[in-house]
């Protein structure tokens, strides 16, 4: 079994502290007791999350959940995880960020869930409930006032970054559609598709008319009889 990275231990400590502080999270963790879930994030080693005694255990590789009781999702020795979530880092972050909104992942950023979907849903709920308050965690290290200022600066940076990404996307899309004409705009696509629909309906009408004419011609031949 490979060594578990130190950063994963830090994340585990933060999550367990979050669970300790929330009755709801403790109840969910208790229900998940003995189960495990695996995160397969593109480009990283699989991370096994196991729940026991109202705590979460995070480990890399396949051996992390060994010796957990075999209840629930079957996280016993050598057992498969109860559920597997796989996707790109952005897709998994997006999934966690959409707190109970129920909206579908955007674009091609898909998260694939295999195994017991209920276990996956409960783990997601638990991770949401146990999500650390970063400002509070930072204040433990550098004090309340600096932590507040760092938090405000980080939010501003995040807001700016989101705006930058949005405007960059819009500019690139506009260039590709209007300047280079490598892509077509949505109205043009819709107009094109509309014209295709009109063409298809016209073709259908012509086909029906030809069929009717053929039937009429066949009927006339039957009346005239053999030559």
């Amino acid at each position: 079994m490979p060594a578990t990275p130190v950063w994963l231990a830090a994340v585990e400590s933060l999550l367990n502290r979050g669970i300790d502080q929330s009755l709801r999270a403790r109840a969910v963790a208790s229900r998940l007791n003995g189960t495990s879930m695996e995160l397969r994030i593109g480009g990283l080693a699989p991370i096994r999350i196991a729940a026991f005694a109202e705590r979460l255990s995070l480990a890399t590789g396949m051996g992390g959940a060994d010796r957990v009781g075999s209840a629930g999702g079957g996280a016993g020795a050598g057992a498969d995880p109860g559920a597997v979530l796989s996707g790109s880092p952005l897709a998994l972050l997006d999934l966690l960020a959409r707190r109970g909104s129920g909206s579908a992942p955007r674009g091609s950023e898909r998260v694939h869930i295999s195994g017991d979907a209920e276990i996956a849903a409960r783990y997601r709920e638990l991770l949401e409930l146990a999500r650390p308050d970063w400002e509070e965690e930072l204040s433990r290290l550098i004090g309340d006032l600096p932590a507040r200022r760092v938090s405000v600066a980080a939010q501003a940076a995040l807001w700016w970054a989101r705006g930058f990404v949005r405007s960059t996307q819009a500019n690139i899309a506009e260039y590709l559609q209007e300047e280079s004409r490598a892509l077509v705009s949505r109205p043009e696509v819709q107009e094109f598709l509309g014209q295709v629909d009109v063409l298809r309906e016209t073709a259908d009408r012509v086909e029906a008319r030809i069929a009717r004419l053929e039937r009429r011609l066949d009927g006339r031949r039957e009346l005239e009889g053999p030559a």
Partner: protein
Amino acid sequence: MKTSDRSVDFGFEKVPWAQKAERVRAVFSSVAGKYDLMNDLMSFGAHRLWKHFTLSLTGLKAGQHALDVAGGTGDLAVGLARQVGKTGHVVLSDINPDMLSTGRDRLIDAGFAGSVACVLADAERLPWADDSFDCVTIGFGLRNVTDKAAALASMHRVLKPGGQLLVLEFSTPVAPGLKPIYDAYSFGVLPRLGEWVAKDAASYRYLAESIRMHPNQETLLAMLNEAGFGQTRYHNLTGGIVAVHRGYKI
């Protein structure tokens, strides 16, 4: 095989089973007074970071009970006492009376006279009832224990179900290129440093040798599993010079 016929590593030396504890006691009695200073000098202060990381893993809450086995001068015990607060309870135990005495003085000076008990105890036969502690730590102590399997079983016994054992110990470097440098430092510099500062080169030669004879990361992980611990993992620190092994009583 009878215990009297068995031998055990004491550094690179093989000594009769019954003699190791006495020889380890002599080493630590010799270095007790300069132990903390030597730790800072030998590790360039990194031992404080290793202990800080270990303490960050305990998951202890106010009011809980913790045991620091082979706790020596009480670095981990002080951190544990801060985590469990005044309503909790911490026991600092060591088999060596000189180390324990130094640790007790330090705890009193740090203001933890009431909440930390100091107990002279053998890690292989811990004198507490089953299921007594929420967390047990052993920092740089396991490699000095004669019967490591018995010590792990004893620590497993005194843990409450769901409780965690944390073993902070020197291990095998895994970072590329680190091992030759580390060997040169351990066998070339450490004994001389021990001679200059603690006036005891032999004890620090034992320290370097005992680290080499200690089980590597995977072997110790297997020993934790054999002792009955679950959710076992380890974290390499400073390129594997030190590793923190953890396991839960499930």
